[in-house]
């Protein structure tokens, strides 16, 4: 079974998916998730904590992937005025966790609460900027908000960079773990 097939199957039954990939597979996993979303014709809300959304967009473009239904929430820029297009929402800092939740809420509303995949990239980066107490709370609030909707949350993490404490929190809040190859 390919990773794409695995992602498709997992999405059928689970709302919150922890993706634990190796550093080597990290980007391929993200591409696979977006590919699945494109195949299923659902929206993608890509919450970027690690890599600027412009780079992700360029990569998707270079693979010829359609960006029609892909929106970005970018908190890597540290600059409010850096918003370049209507499909990219800027959050000034990854410590503004409530604002990240509100931006996802906003995207859900403007897309008519249609089915969506939310990619949170990544738990490791969020943990650099936020302590574990508030981060756990953030995940709980976000997941509680998403549960009633037709949304699937993929929490991206890099296995070799996870601390045991963060790993425990992620395991606790996720429905299932997608292990990288």
């Amino acid at each position, binding site marked *: 079974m390919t990773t794409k097939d695995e992602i498709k199957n997992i999405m059928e039954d689970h709302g919150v998916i922890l993706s634990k990939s190796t550093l080597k597979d990290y980007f391929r996993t993200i591409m696979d998730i977006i590919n699945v979303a494109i195949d299923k014709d659902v929206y993608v809300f890509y919450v970027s904590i690690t890599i600027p959304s412009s780079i992700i967009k360029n990569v998707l473009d270079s693979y010829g992937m359609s960006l029609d239904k892909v929106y970005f929430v970018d908190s890597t820029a540290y600059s409010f005025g850096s918003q370049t297009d209507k499909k990219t929402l800027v959050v*000034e*800092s990854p*410590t*503004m*966790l*409530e*604002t990240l*939740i*509100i*931006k996802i*809420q*906003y995207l859900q*509303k*403007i897309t008519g609460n249609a089915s969506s995949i939310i990619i949170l990239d990544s738990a490791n980066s969020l943990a650099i900027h*936020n*302590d574990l*107490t*508030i*981060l*756990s*709370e*953030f995940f709980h*609030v976000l997941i509680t*908000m998403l549960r009633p909707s037709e949304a699937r949350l993929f929490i991206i993490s890099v296995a070799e960079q996870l601390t045991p404490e963060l790993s425990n929190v992620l395991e606790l809040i996720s429905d299932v773990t997608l292990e990288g190859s």
Partner: protein
Amino acid sequence: MNVESKNRCLTGISGLDALLNGGIPRGNSVLISGSCGTGKTTISLEFLIRGAETNENGLYISATEIGSNVMNNLVPFDFFKQEYFDSGKIEVLDVPKIYEELKLTKMEFDKDDIDKFIDYIGKKIEKGEIKRLVIDSLTSICYRLRTEEKIREFIIKIEKKVNDNGITALLVSELLPTAKGYSQYGVEEAVADGILLLGNLKRRGDLLRTLQIIKMRGTAHSRAEYVMDITSIGILISPLLKGGTVMSL
């Protein structure tokens, strides 16, 4: 009257009606309190526009800025519709013009001046079949009342007009960032039926807009603090995360 069955005015502001257990009880005068930049005017205007969307006429009384300037600030919002203003569904009145029309030139109003002003608003409410009223700001109007007694009398009379006409009012209250209470003169918060407190919360260098319902007569309501964001589709809120060190401004 059974508090649960009291007729509600749906604010239409995402998430807020749920915190109010189904909206503001009709006839209530609610203080929107906060320091500068907390979103008092935006939330008040969205309240009027959401009302116009459901055929509830609104009246916006502007005391701090020229009404047309306030409207211009609304243009970028997706929910803004000029037709609501052109058709009179939402009427905008400038307080200096009202004072001029009523020949209220004194720097300190007496009882007759208060009555003239209240009557004027009352007539506008009746003529325009107003269901939603915003006074932005109550603090500016109270500046000419000076004494606690006159401020109390003014608010009570406004509340009576609001209640008698079954309308719902938002009364904007300006606070200093260091204020301890919910209003400038201390009287407003005691007399108002409800208090919606907007704030700025500084957390690790980030400034978050917050919203909290302090009181609301006639309904059970949330008492938790929420983070608020002003987006192109209107106000959106999310629970304030309690972890971490916080400092209120």
